[in-house]
């Protein structure tokens, strides 16, 4: 038995509220790191935001647990939240920086840019 479909918030389209990747850019100056990070000047970590749908389509790559948690929220206990919208895949970023010793370092940092989102 499946409960009634919940309507989305008034005035907001499904696209606006559903879990999705949002572009976001920050400068290393804003982070206070411009003294030692030479390149790049801008960093685009992006972020995931939005509600997780009741039916988790395959494009969201949700694990079985998320499907069960949705069912629990709907059928058993409404105080158990729906799955959260979080990053699924990341990409690295290459940084050129000056070390404390005065050496110049090129370095790739893993998992620095959100590339897609999931509900889990």
């Amino acid at each position, binding site marked *: 038995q499946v409960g009634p479909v919940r309507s989305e918030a008034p005035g907001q389209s499904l696209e606006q509220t559903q879990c999705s990747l949002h572009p976001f850019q920050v400068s290393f100056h804003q982070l206070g790191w411009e003294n030692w990070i030479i390149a790049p000047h801008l960093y685009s970590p992006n972020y995931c935001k939005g509600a997780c749908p009741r039916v988790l389509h395959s494009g969201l790559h949700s694990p079985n647990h998320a499907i069960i948690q949705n069912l629990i929220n709907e059928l058993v206990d409404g105080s158990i939240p729906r799955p959260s919208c979080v990053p699924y895949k990341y990409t690295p970023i*290459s940084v050129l920086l000056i070390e404390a010793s*005065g050496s*110049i*370092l090129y370095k790739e940092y893993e998992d620095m840019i959100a590339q897609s989102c999931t509900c889990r």
Partner: protein
Amino acid sequence: VHAQDAVALAQVPTLLPLLGALLQEAPRKSPRRRLTRGRPLQYMLELYRQNADPHGRPREKRIFSANAVRLVRPAGRRALPPRGPWYVQTLDFLLEPNRDVEQLVRAAVVYRPHLHLSRSHLSCHVEPWAHKSAILLGGGSLGFALPEAWAERDLTNYIQQQVWPPKGKRVLHIQVRCQQQERTEVGLGWRQALATDTTFLVLYFNNTFKNVPQTGLQELVLRNPGGADLFSLARRVR
């Protein structure tokens, strides 16, 4: 600094590996202006441009099989008196690896094979300065496409076998030998020409955080009751 803050800062590398690594690498104060320009920086910017796009995303076709490259400047230099057409100086490079997270995959000395002075020019090459008779050079994979006017000598085997210390510091001695090309007066300018960032060491690493132990939140709460506020910890680091 309050004692509590000091304790919190000491825990940062364990709790937040990324911030820990960044704190280790960040200079205590703003880098001197000379570091933010000059030939070494131009060299590394070229390396960066070949391996990452303007947004910092690594290019799909990686030029070298390493995820970190460090340019090391000489910590000391000694110029020998000229002998005939030969102008020689010895450079000392301080090696201080963190072998837990840095796996050396390639090492090379980068230098300028031709130095132009006002009335003459010198033709140069480099070699390790060691007492051992047989020095095994080479051994590294390809580096990146060198900017014009630069040359490099692969020292991967030599550094891995002779110099790379298990722990602590070691000094790599490199001799730069330059030969005068014309029978003209070189003058005193050769010392200055050799001293202005014409030779440096480039180390290629595979660098990982995976070996850094991570502490679970629960463990943190048990160890530090009432002080498990990661947010304020991160703010204090900032």
